[in-house]
């Protein structure tokens, strides 16, 4: 249904004329050659720490930022080549739910107005019908109708996030891309939201791309899991096998299956420059199982078992 092929999003960090002596311009590969498929009705989980590129990936798929290479196919059509009309339809069928509903809701619009917006943009229904749709969606996300007249600042974090979810559902999408939908929320509220999201998905037969740094959430919810590190998809594995059967060294460290260097701390611990790590596998510098090959050759994502892909030289 949704296919991503070799997607890359690189941007160049330029330093001013004086800085150039110390820090040469370098390229940040936010997303580097990512490929995966989302099947109809499936949940594809993407796991990665902050800085792994997962948010940029989501935004690029939604065409909210421009890719430097690669393509995204939706229903067989190339998303990046779509004209305005097709794009509008694409946007109707592929809806985002972002992290931090604080910034995804206009502080000057009431909840009712926020929910009405997608319907107005796509010219769906007359005033009466819109009102009914809005009330229905509020019920679906367990929000009282009394909240319709409130402003986002008057709602709790969990409530705001539910409004965001409701807004995504109003257009009756086929795919929802949820980027950290529960981060920043209390555990109880987060569970509630996750439970809601998964229930709605089941009820409507949606596909879901669930992006999170919370392993437990992804391990619980996903049919297939993709692990991202530094812009690359290093492993793609079935949801059932993820917890015990991950093979990539980084995945195993994340899951606690192996003790290893938690790359994040040392990475920025003291100001380091990334140009040192440009060649070869991005995880090589911290990998317990690194071979000499890892420092010069970028491993490709290969199928090691049916349905299980790993990008690592050390895995057979």
């Amino acid at each position, binding site marked *: 249904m949704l296919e991503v092929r070799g997607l890359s999003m690189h941007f160049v960090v330029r330093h001013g004329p004086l800085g150039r002596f110390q820090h040469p311009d370098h390229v940040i590969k936010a997303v580097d050659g990512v490929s995966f498929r989302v099947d109809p009705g499936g949940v594809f989980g993407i796991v990665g*720490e*902050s800085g792994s590129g997962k948010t940029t990936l989501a935004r690029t798929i939604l065409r909210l930022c421009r890719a430097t290479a690669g393509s995204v196919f939706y229903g067989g059509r190339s998303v990046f080549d779509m004209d305005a009309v097709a794009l509008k339809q694409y946007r109707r069928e592929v809806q985002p739910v972002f992290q931090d509903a604080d910034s995804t809701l206009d502080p000057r619009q009431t909840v009712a107005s926020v929910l009405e917006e997608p319907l107005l943009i796509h010219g769906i229904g007359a005033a009466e019908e819109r009102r009914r749709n809005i009330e229905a969606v509020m019920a679906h996300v*367990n929000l009282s109708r009394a909240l319709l007249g409130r402003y986002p600042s008057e709602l*709790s*974090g*969990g*409530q705001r996030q539910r409004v965001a979810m409701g807004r995504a559902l109003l257009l009756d999408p086929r795919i929802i891309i949820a980027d950290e939908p529960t981060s920043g929320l*209390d*555990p*109880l*509220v*987060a*569970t*509630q939201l*996750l*439970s809601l999201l*998964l229930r709605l998905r089941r009820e409507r037969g949606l596909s879901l791309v669930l992006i999170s*740094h*919370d*392993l*437990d*959430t992804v*391990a*619980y919810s996903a049919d297939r899991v993709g692990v991202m590190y530094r812009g690359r998809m290093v492993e793609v594995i079935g*949801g*059932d096998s993820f*917890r015990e059967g991950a093979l990539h060294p980084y995945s195993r*460290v*994340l899951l606690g299956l192996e003790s290893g260097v*938690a*790359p*994040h*701390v040392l*990475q*920025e*611990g*003291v*100001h380091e420059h990334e140009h040192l790590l440009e060649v070869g596998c991005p995880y090589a510098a911290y990998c317990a199982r690194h071979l000499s090959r890892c420092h010069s050759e970028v491993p490709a994502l290969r199928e090691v078992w049916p349905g299980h892909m790993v990008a690592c030289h050390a895995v057979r």
Partner: protein
Amino acid sequence: MTPLLQVRDLHVSFDTPQGVVRANAGVDLDVEEGESVGIMGESGCGKTVLFLSILGLQHPGRITKGRIRFDGQDLTGLGERELCRVRGRGIALVPQNHATALNPAYTVRDQLLEAMVVRERDGGLRNVFLRPDRVLQERHLDAMRRVFGDLGFGDERLLERLMQSYPHELSGGMRQRVLIAMALLLEPRLLIADEPTTALDRATRAQSLELLRRLNDRLTMLVVSHDLGAIATMCSRVAVMYAGRIIEQGPSVEVLSRPRHPYSRALVAAQERRRGQPLPEVYADTSDLINVPSGCPFHASCPDMAAECVDSLPPVHSCGPVSVACHLYREAS
């Protein structure tokens, strides 16, 4: 032995345009020397106001009732000057937001030095014009090295780089370490850690937890968090707060494995994710601290609500090693 920290019937209120918010409505808490106590609860339960009140930083909130005793001294009646003496040397805080808790204009070394200077010299007005380089002495550097060594950062070269860095050049985990070091340099009797793991990603979280657990061997700690796993690792005792009250308290092993109060049960159950099992059913919305409902504040969302829950506030009942504020456990005591 008298507990190091004793909070008795604490009531703290805030005046807002919408009404009076009763952030703490009768909190009783003891922390013995050498213990590590966790305060668990969600946003709005009052845990933040609790520790801020202990530090005397609850403004614009007002302590309307109750007492806070630290090391035998009554803190509630103290003026600002005396409170300054207690803060830092008596009770130190490791703030939650590592991004904003450090001054971006000063290096790590200067900020750590500031902590030590304040401790030595009493942070008064006459110290405002002290210049860090003039005041820095070998003993200060020694202390910093020692503290970082304890935190697992022994390498001399790395430490030197760290000292000269500015906060924005460091990762979140590193900044938190600096904040912990700052607190340790003050050599406090009690360390309060505010949400020590919430702002960190998974990898750093594990390291921080380990660090704090080791610190507990030498320090009395009060950990405020909504992260169950963190509390389980770091604290020997835990108090669960809801709507400004402690509704369950006891050894963490007990409370977290067999929660009694319906709210604690929901809280603990919510953090489990077992594949193939449906997620635990959870109630809807948070408590209202302005129009506090009669009786038990949780009754509207409680799956085990009975008639008396609407009318009367449940007193604290003992249930083995655990104390619970719930009518369900009346028989146990």
